């Protein structure tokens, strides 16, 4: 089975939030309460246990390079679980609840998850979250149920501008490269791909859901250089070996110290 994924081209996103609604409807996710953030048109704020697509609204006092309307631009970006090639949540899951599916996506099995919350601190993108009232961790499933029926995930299906494109990862990468070249030709020099391949993003070894952006990742609330924690975890394990040896030495040393006291 070929690896499936999303290519989200943020330059043609119009911020309609159809992806958010389609995701909620198809997956029958509960609402998050109706809060008003007062910060922009974004009242969803972030991805979460019951929000698997989130459209970011970015108001910048900066013009795009092919824009003549003055120092302002409005960027939209539909964020989603990246289904990383090396997934922090999957590698840290102590129950084996989080698995890699036949489509290359990362899936949380709700019947296995015991809600330990370790995946939450291991996702370098802040995607997966535990729902307090439900007790388990949830995130985008890449519409696993739809993929099994040969259907396109709900968000991509509903995107009216094809900002969200779904397909075989290899094909999406080609399409994305062509799109960046086209944008560069049209004068939008700042367009680039985020996480499109293992070379692009070594820390995660590439994202199955990658993005075309026109500003720094931070602007979209994406990390500039995410690394799956396990890659650095070796340092911690080495320190643990040293620490265990230290405690053992201290214990044996104390016993010898006690014995010396009796003799003297």
């Amino acid at each position, binding site marked *: 089975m070929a690896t499936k994924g999303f290519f989200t081209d943020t330059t043609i996103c119009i911020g309609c939030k159809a992806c958010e609604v389609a995701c*909620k409807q198809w*997956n*029958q*996710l*509960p*609402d998050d*309460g109706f*809060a008003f*953030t*007062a910060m922009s048109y974004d009242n969803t*704020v972030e991805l979460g246990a019951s929000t*698997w697509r989130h459209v970011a609204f970015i*108001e910048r*006092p900066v013009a795009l390079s092919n824009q003549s309307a003055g120092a302002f631009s409005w960027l939209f970006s539909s964020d989603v679980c990246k289904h990383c090639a090396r997934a922090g949540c999957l*590698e*840290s899951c*102590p*129950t*084996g609840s989080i698995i890699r599916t036949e489509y290359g996506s990362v899936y949380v099995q709700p019947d*296995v*998850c*015991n*809600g*330990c*919350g370790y995946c939450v*601190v*291991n996702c370098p993108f*802040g*995607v997966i979250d535990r729902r*307090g009232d*439900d007790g*388990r961790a949830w995130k985008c*499933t890449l519409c696993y149920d739809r993929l099994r029926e040969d259907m396109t995930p709900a968000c991509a299906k509903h995107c009216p501008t094809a900002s969200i494109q779904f397909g075989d990862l290899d094909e999406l990468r080609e399409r994305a490269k062509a799109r960046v070249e086209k944008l560069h030709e049209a004068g939008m020099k700042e367009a680039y791909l985020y996480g499109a391949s293992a070379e692009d993003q070594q820390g995660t070894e590439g994202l199955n859901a990658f993005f075309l952006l026109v500003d*720094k990742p*931070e*602007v979209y*609330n*994406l*990390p*500039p*250089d995410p690394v799956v*924690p396990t890659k650095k*975890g070796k*340092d*911690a394990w080495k*320190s*643990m070996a*040293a*620490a*265990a040896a*230290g*405690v053992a030495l*201290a*214990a044996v040393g*104390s*016993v010898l*110290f*006690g*014995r010396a*006291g009796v003799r003297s």
Partner: protein
Amino acid sequence: MSEIRYPDSTNPVFTDGRDIDTGIGALVGEGSLQRVEPVDKRFKQDADVWRDLPHSNPSDATYYGRPMLKAPVWAAYVPTYYFLGGAAGASLALGAAVQLDRSEATSGLVRKAHWVGIVASSIGAGFLILDLGRPLRFLNMMRVFRPTSPMNMGAWILAGTPPAAIAAGLFARSSMFRMIGEVCGYVSGFLGLALCTYTGVLVGNTAIPVWQEGRRVLPILFGASAASTAGGMLGMFNDLNARERRIVRAFTAVGAAAEVACSKWMDHATSRVEQVGLPLRRGLSGALWNGAGFLSLAALAVTITPGRSRTKRIIGGSLAALGSFALRFAVHYAGEASARDPKASFHLQRTRR
């Protein structure tokens, strides 16, 4: 379905947050299994209303200052467990070392070490189970053996420790099974070494900036702090002989000294990128961190002061235990603060490049 009154509405609304008429549509979607409590309880905190138009800083951008990472969902059970697991682990390690000495004079200390180890690790394991979102599924931790997950490794270590310690305690005085008791004593000591240090890997092996930067320090810091707690606790018993007192005093002093040194190392390791170390200097976590540093220094001073009164041992032991307790909470809350600060992650990752 429960009756929910939205804050700004006059009429109560019946909803599970989905509003699907089950007469028309079946609840079979992948998110339909989410159990939902009344909406009011889970309302997000509204952002502060803007007084001025937002000015984004292109050279130091964030998304309206919103967190990039998710904060740990763990309650106070988890840092309390770090403390209890540490005390249990170091106590069992000391017990095994004393047992190695094979002296009648110190067999009382071995029993006390087992006792502390059994109680602290069992309560700690209970706290961890209570912290799970689905506590009844705690045995799912044993479905897999996964070295990439420190949480899974910890579950195996923690599952082995109390049984080994209980067996060691039970069989130590029986004439028939004495060998088994001794072997279990050494096994519990070995597992104890892992139990008091792996929690440092657990927090170090995450995406939270302040924990990640401290990953080389945390296992050693937690191990040192566990030794001072275990020594301090064992020192509080009233029927220790002179030799046993010397042992626990040395163990406490070495642990507290290492704890003080590792705190400085942690300050240094997290100050490479200014934004990453902030939670250890500011706010609740900063206050706890400074308090922990002061307490462990005080514990060290009291422990090395000459004198053999029990009052002195109780004061020294309490200071050591309080210091370790504050230290675990400081690290926990620092992680929460660090996750809420998007600039901590961004600056760290930009520096790495």
